């Protein structure tokens, strides 16, 4: 539980290995391809930030990994968790994994805690349900210990959810996920409902998670600043695809995909001196454009971008980018690198 991050060898086996994952929803107009061929690995103790704008499929991906998709959604591909392909596992087996192996932290902590149950009851019930052999004293000790690591004092152990502030409730939710010591956690926008100073406290807790627990974390957010602080790696999602992923510092310092670059430029930060935005809107996921999904909005689009799907290219430092600007050159047809003539994008098509 307390294994320092340094103890986790970087060559450790991935705890989660996702290959060519596709998730789609059936609609009258045809399937909505919310996640379209996503592959990545996550190692123990590693935090991967998943960023993208609303509708890019990041929440669907996060829920899909835990088998929490709504009825009507279909998934295909492979989610290998400690050797088992979750997509082929029986429903009962996944239910058994959820909690002790797979955890989730939601956006609104108040709606996830039972107002009639003391915090102590939430924890002890959770532990008893998943570890029936656990003794009462041991359950109490472990709960208080986990809460303490999240900054909840033991004097508040028997309080009710409404007696806590928003930030403390989110800490309780994080502790409730961690008390079972899961190997993998999805946190979906865990700080969006919180204030700036409290958000900073939670980011700090998430950043420390890497050092104090060997849980692998997928942190879904639209806030690039959070990723820069709390994540080892970042994956940028656009229209159901991962367009770029790699070391968080490297991707932010030197974004390779034009979408990553434009997204960073349009983020308004304290350093902002001029306004910048990406024209147009993300594509309709029922009928996405051919080739690269970003090409209609891309300032660097080439002829090949509208014709062929981009191929993910690995860089020397281990980053991956799916953009024809980075090759592979031998897969581009003659004349493919010529600049694409683009139509003007009007407000009528904006996001």
């Amino acid at each position, binding site marked *: 539980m307390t294994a320092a991050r340094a103890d986790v060898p970087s060559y450790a086996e991935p705890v989660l290995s996702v290959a060519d994952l596709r998730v789609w929803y059936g609609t009258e107009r045809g399937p909505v391809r919310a996640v379209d061929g996503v592959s990545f690995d996550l190692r123990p103790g590693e935090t991967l930030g998943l960023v993208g704008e609303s509708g890019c499929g990041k929440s669907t991906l996060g829920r899909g990994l835990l088998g929490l998709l709504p009825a009507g959604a279909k998934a295909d591909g492979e989610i290998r968790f400690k050797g088992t392909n979750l997509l082929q596992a029986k429903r009962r087996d996944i239910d058994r994994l959820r909690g002790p192996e797979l955890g989730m932290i939601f956006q609104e902590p108040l709606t996830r805690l039972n107002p009639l149950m003391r915090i102590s009851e939430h924890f002890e019930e959770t532990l008893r349900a998943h570890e029936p052999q656990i003794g009462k004293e041991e359950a109490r000790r472990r709960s208080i210990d986990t809460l303490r690591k999240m900054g909840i004092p033991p004097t508040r152990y028997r309080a009710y959810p409404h007696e806590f502030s928003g930030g403390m409730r989110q800490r309780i939710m994080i502790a409730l996920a961690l008390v079972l010591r899961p190997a993998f956690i999805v946190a979906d926008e865990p700080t969006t409902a919180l*204030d700036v*100073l409290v958000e900073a406290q939670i980011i700090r807790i998430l950043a420390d998670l890497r050092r104090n627990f060997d849980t692998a974390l997928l942190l879904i957010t639209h806030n690039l600043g959070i990723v820069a602080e709390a994540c080892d790696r970042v994956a940028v999602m656009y229209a159901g695809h991962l367009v770029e992923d790699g070391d968080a510092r490297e991707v*932010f310092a030197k974004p390779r995909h034009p979408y990553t670059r434009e997204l960073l430029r349009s983020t*308004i930060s304290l350093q902002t001196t001029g306004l910048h935005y990406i024209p147009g809107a993300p594509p309709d996921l029922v009928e996405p454009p051919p080739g690269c999904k970003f090409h209609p909005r891309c300032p660097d689009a080439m002829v090949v971008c509208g014709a062929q799907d981009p191929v993910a290219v690995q860089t020397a430092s281990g980053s991956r980018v799916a953009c024809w600007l980075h090759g592979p050159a031998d897969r581009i047809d003659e004349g493919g690198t010529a600049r694409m003539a683009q139509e003007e994008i009007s407000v009528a098509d904006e996001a």
Partner: protein
Amino acid sequence: MPTKLDAQVPSSAPGGADDALMKVRDLQVHYALRGSSMGRLFGAGGDVVKAVDGVTFDLRRREVLGLVGESGSGKTTLGRALLGLVRPTGGEVRYGEHDLPSLSERRLRPFRRKLQMVFQDPSAALNPSMDIEAAVGHPLQIHKLVANRTERRERVVEALERVGLAPVERFLSKYPSDLSGGQKQRAVLARAIILGPELLVADEPISMLDMSVRAKILELMLDLKRDLDLTYVYITHDLATAKFFCDRVAIMYLGRIVEIGPTEEIFSDPKHPYTKALLRAIPEPDPGALVPRDLPRGEIPDAAAPPLGCSFHPRCPAAFEKCGWETRDLRPLLEQRWLGLDEDAYDAERATIGNLDSLDVPAHQVRLSPGRGRGPGDVEALVQRAREADPQEPLWKGVKRLEAQDGAVAVDFHEGEDPRLRPAGAVEVACHLY
């Protein structure tokens, strides 16, 4: 926008010598909590939440004034009170010759044309069963400014063109559900400007939008301001957009303005410890910048029982004697200490102090009674240990007297003082440090 409205609407004083569009003086919005209906009737019992508690400032013509604060700071209530959407319980909002809170609803209505609001969630601000033409033109009907549909359409087309929803024909018959978030917010802006207002209060107008379109809506608002001579009150929790967008910024905390001044000053030389903390807490998408680890503890306190003295003192790293230390500050201090102790040490210390709940009553004096089987000496020793472990803790500056007395430990705090907004350099700040 056509200016024919101006003739009918009592406008504020023309620009020139007096450049204040609105003068807000000691504005208060208090809400009574709980208590029986009879109690409310006779003004007895029940707590009071001071959502806005004595706010004074001038809103200058053609400026963008940012109201920045966290949730519960009173920024939205203040914005609404400026427009007469919330009835203040005290103070003045002077608009031209008139004091808005003293006007009846009927006499306030003509002013509403000049004072408009843009809401946070464009999806909730538009009626889903009205098409864009009806929604944007609705204010014209309410104020009976158009005689027929043709006239309304002319005005709506003009407003939509101004906010960039072109080609207009494509949008007139659309419903809100057909539009993207950015387009909806443009429609909301069109509705807000169609009556030719002077002031727009924009409450988090871009926080529900995606990163890639936020800049576009801000740019549009700047264009509208320039073309239509608007004044903005921009309500936000996001300091980064406030820095870019505002001429002046007012930082709010628990119903008060704690610092107000030109944006440049506030960001280059923040004075109030709360402003300083906010500025350092923003996560920046810069791999070199990390969120600092020494940010204020805790969260915004309960507005129904605000801290004594300066509201920020329990979280303030720079607080000292005058700031209003009190009983309730002791509990978080002990609890914070206990987080770091192992189980046995915690059990021993917890048993040393009797009833912790006695610390939940606001007062400048407290008696810490020992737990069963412990004496006042044990309590005193525990407090001394805590003090030695963290002598830098600002709370210790507030302790005037600490001694064993009649079987308990008496702790007296210095009487605090509520800081008022005072000029400090180019800004005004409510903090005893200045």
